[in-house]
């Protein structure tokens, strides 16, 4: 039975494609009340008075909350859209009518929106209790400072704020029946929700059950427990009723964490032949109104040297509070920023020294794995130079370059070809699997992984079926309900199959020895196992009969295995080909190709899907998306009409390759993670490609995402070519 490595369609699809997958807004418990929030129009204001007199008497209104649970902590709102009161009504339309009747008196305070302004003395404070807006400041340093490059290059790079924009807005349903509080929520972390709700309401953990229904995308933005999840749970608990909240899109854009929003100020020391010896710099993260995005700027700092053998590095990681939506994880969470920074630096080095960017990479790539970077992170396995060279060949990089030249010469088409290379860090924490062999020899696997589109139930079933040598149809994976599955972390950080899948493999191995013991009793000899049958002494017994024997003897064929997964490091090369319309500066992504060493690939069909989606997000970050606030702190890009997500028209043609000569991780699965690599690799590849196209007429250098059509137009026509 060979499943691992085979492109296998998803078991999840059968329900989704019939329109029967249940998302949180599809859940309608009897008598459910609809919750809505009165939200601050100001980004920074003292809440003087919340007057809900007219709301309480409005048609359909059942209850209002404005002081309990505690809204507007410290009597202050810190970003536009922060909740100041909650209203429950019998009907969604009546709820909207009622919300409009709320009268809130605010004392607007001057907002601070720019992180550099926020760092200046005398700037308005987002959180007075800290006495500063610099909420985090830590310096990482390592390596040998004695080696200094002959050439010093300084600069500034910027990855602007974006909105993750899962197609399903956040939502939560909570029901309290007098004993048990059950919560359905659009989350990546059911167990965190359970813990935080229990602690907020002072309930025993055993009285709180959290169910993750189908989740319509998350990309890191649903990895936190949000205030609304607590508010709705609290309301259901206090009133012993059922309450549901579904965010509108604009509510979601203002209150679900944003991503990226980091700048790097850097100084690198380079040898004349293009070896980057030292990197020094400061990474600033615009953390927004609450420091929910802990660790993001640290990851960006600690991965800043990328796959390169930099001898010395010193990076300060700074996070600054501003009156904007809190910053949080977004697909890659620190690694896309680090990768954009270091790849732009490598391209700049090549440009300044007149070297080929390919040669600069070869000169700097780490030669021997494992390798410990200056900040003490040890990259596990790989052969970066060989993989890099193979990738360029396989992806036809030089051919594409030549074709783009010809198209320019013959047809004046402005086509650019760009590449990026990356190493990223995935996987952390423990994951537990409970596995039960049913009375007929079929298998149920319980996991705390919290998939939301990745197809993890399929991938886990493949892994278990392969390890137990039984048909995949006989394996079912249960996830998403804290009443059934073992306590675990959830799905984020490209960790799920490596951590959860490895736990599953170990569980199968334990199960096999448990089954072998029982089979030995039946067969009266020490059996061998093959494809669902135990053999020895010319006799054999099938799995199902072994299990029957166990059940008869009151031995449950159940195992529980916890696996602690250390970090592992995918490496790869991605290529973007874009075409610029010189009349408008608009960019059409034409082709996107990837070549990745992610260790073992469990399901190439699903892995390629992760590349497609991640790449399109990265392309869109590079070319279209930015969360924009006006000077008063209003989120201008507050809905999908104003925030441009890519459509099928913008999508390039994808070509996905996984390295034939791959380097497995040391985990039982041998996997390294695939969920975020393309979101990490795409932005620098795309910016590189745009720069390459623009270079046909002008010597511009781009140093931020997104690059707007206006900037491109100005560069092409030499009106204001950016050079940084």
């Amino acid at each position: 039975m060979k499943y691992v490595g085979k492109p296998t369609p998803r078991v999840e699809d059968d329900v989704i494609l019939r329109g029967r997958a249940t998302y949180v807004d599809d859940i309608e418990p009897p008598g459910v009340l609809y919750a809505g929030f009165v939200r601050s129009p100001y980004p920074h204001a003292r809440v003087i008075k919340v007057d809900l007199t007219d709301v309480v008497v409005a048609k359909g209104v059942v209850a209002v909350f404005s002081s309990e649970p505690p809204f507007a902590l410290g009597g202050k709102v810190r970003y536009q859209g922060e909740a100041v009161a909650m209203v429950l009504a019998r009907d969604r339309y009546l709820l909207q009518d009622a919300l409009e009747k709320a009268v809130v008196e605010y004392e607007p305070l001057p907002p601070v929106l720019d992180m550099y302004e926020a760092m200046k003395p005398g700037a308005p404070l987002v959180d007075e209790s800290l006495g500063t807006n610099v909420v985090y400041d830590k310096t990482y340093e390592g390596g040998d400072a004695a080696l200094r490059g002959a050439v010093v290059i300084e600069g500034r790079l910027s990855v602007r704020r974006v909105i993750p924009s899962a197609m399903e807005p956040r939502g939560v349903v909570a029901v309290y029946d007098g004993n048990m509080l059950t919560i359905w929520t659009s989350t990546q972390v059911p167990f965190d929700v359970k813990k935080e709700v229990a602690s907020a309401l002072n309930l025993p953990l055993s009285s709180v059950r959290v169910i993750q229904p189908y989740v319509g995308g998350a990309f890191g933005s649903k990895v936190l427990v949000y205030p609304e999840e607590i508010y709705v749970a609290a309301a259901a608990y206090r009133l012993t009723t059922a309450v549901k909240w579904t965010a509108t899109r604009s509510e979601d854009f203002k209150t679900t964490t944003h991503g990226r929003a980091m700048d790097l100020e850097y100084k690198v020391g380079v040898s004349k032949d293009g070896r980057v010896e030292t990197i020094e710099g400061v990474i600033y993260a615009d953390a927004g109104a609450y420091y929910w995005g802990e660790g993001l700027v640290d990851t960006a700092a600690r991965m800043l040297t990328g796959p390169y053998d930099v001898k010395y590095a010193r990076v300060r990681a700074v996070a600054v509070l501003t009156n904007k939506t809190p910053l949080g994880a977004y697909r890659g969470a620190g690694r896309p920023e680090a990768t954009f920074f270091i790849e732009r630096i490598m391209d700049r080095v090549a440009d300044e020294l007149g070297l080929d960017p390919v040669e600069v990479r070869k000169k700097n790539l780490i030669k021997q794995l494992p390798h410990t970077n200056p900040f003490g992170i040890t990259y596990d396995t790989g052969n970066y130079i060989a993989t890099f060279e193979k990738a360029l060949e396989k992806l036809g990089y030089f051919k594409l370059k030549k074709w783009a030249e010809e198209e320019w010469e013959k047809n004046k088409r402005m086509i650019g070809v760009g590449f990026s290379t990356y190493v990223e860090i995935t996987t952390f924490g423990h994951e537990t699997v409970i596995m039960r062999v049913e009375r007929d020899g079929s298998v149920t696997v319980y996991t705390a992984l919290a998939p939301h589109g990745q197809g993890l139930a399929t991938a886990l079933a493949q892994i278990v079926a392969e390890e137990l040598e039984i048909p995949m149809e006989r394996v079912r994976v249960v996830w998403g309900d804290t009443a059934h599955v073992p306590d675990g972390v959830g799905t984020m950080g490209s960790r799920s199959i490596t951590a959860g899948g490895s736990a599953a493999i170990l569980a199968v191995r334990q199960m096999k020895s448990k089954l072998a013991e029982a089979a030995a009793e039946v067969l009266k000899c020490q059996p061998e196992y093959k494809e669902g049958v135990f053999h020895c002494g010319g006799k054999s017994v099938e799995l199902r009969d072994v299990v029957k024997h166990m059940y008869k003897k009151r031995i449950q064929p159940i195992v529980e295995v916890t696996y602690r997964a250390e970090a592992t490091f995918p490496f790869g090369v991605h290529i973007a080909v874009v075409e610029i319309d010189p009349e408008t500066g608009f960019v059409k992504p034409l082709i996107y190709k990837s070549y990745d060493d992610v260790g073992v690939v469990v399901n190439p069909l699903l892995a390629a899907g992760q590349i497609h989606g991640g790449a399109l997000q990265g392309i869109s970050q590079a070319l279209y998306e930015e969360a924009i606030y006006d000077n008063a702190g209003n989120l201008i890009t507050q809905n999908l009409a104003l925030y441009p997500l890519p459509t099928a028209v913008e999508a390039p043609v994808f070509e996905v390759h996984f390295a034939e000569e791959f380097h497995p991780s040391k985990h039982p699965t041998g996997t390294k993670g695939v969920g975020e690599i393309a979101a990490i690799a795409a932005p620098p590849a795309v910016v590189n490609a745009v720069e390459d196209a623009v270079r046909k007429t002008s010597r511009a250098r781009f140093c931020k995402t997104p690059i707007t059509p206006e900037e491109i137009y100005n560069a092409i026509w030499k009106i204001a070519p950016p050079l940084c």
Partner: protein
Amino acid sequence: MKISLKINGVLHEVEVEPRKLLVHLLRDLGYKSVKVGCDTATCGVCTVLLNGRPVKSCNLLAVQTDGAEIMTVEHNEMESLRVSFKKHHASQCGYCTSAMLTIAYYLKKTAKTREEIVEGLSGVLCRCTGYQNIIEAI
């Protein structure tokens, strides 16, 4: 107001408030495959076929559809597209998938070239896939 409409071939007679959106009526009637993803009629995840043509059901009042025939992804005629979507891994989180299938059903009948399919799909946003697998599935 009382209206009558056929949904996936089944006749419904319902009393609706004039301000109720078609998407909410459909969902209240149990056609939960029809999703809501925005408040600006931009995302297209609420797409259904109204008398054979794709419409955003959040952008119509239910009362405007009196006498209409509506088709959603629950309809049996979607089966061959379902098989193709599964084979091509054209769905990830699934939130846009009902709309994608619905529009795919329409494009199967009307679009002649890949460009027309791409153009036709651009009315529905998907944040998970790169669209390529959806295009290939069609």
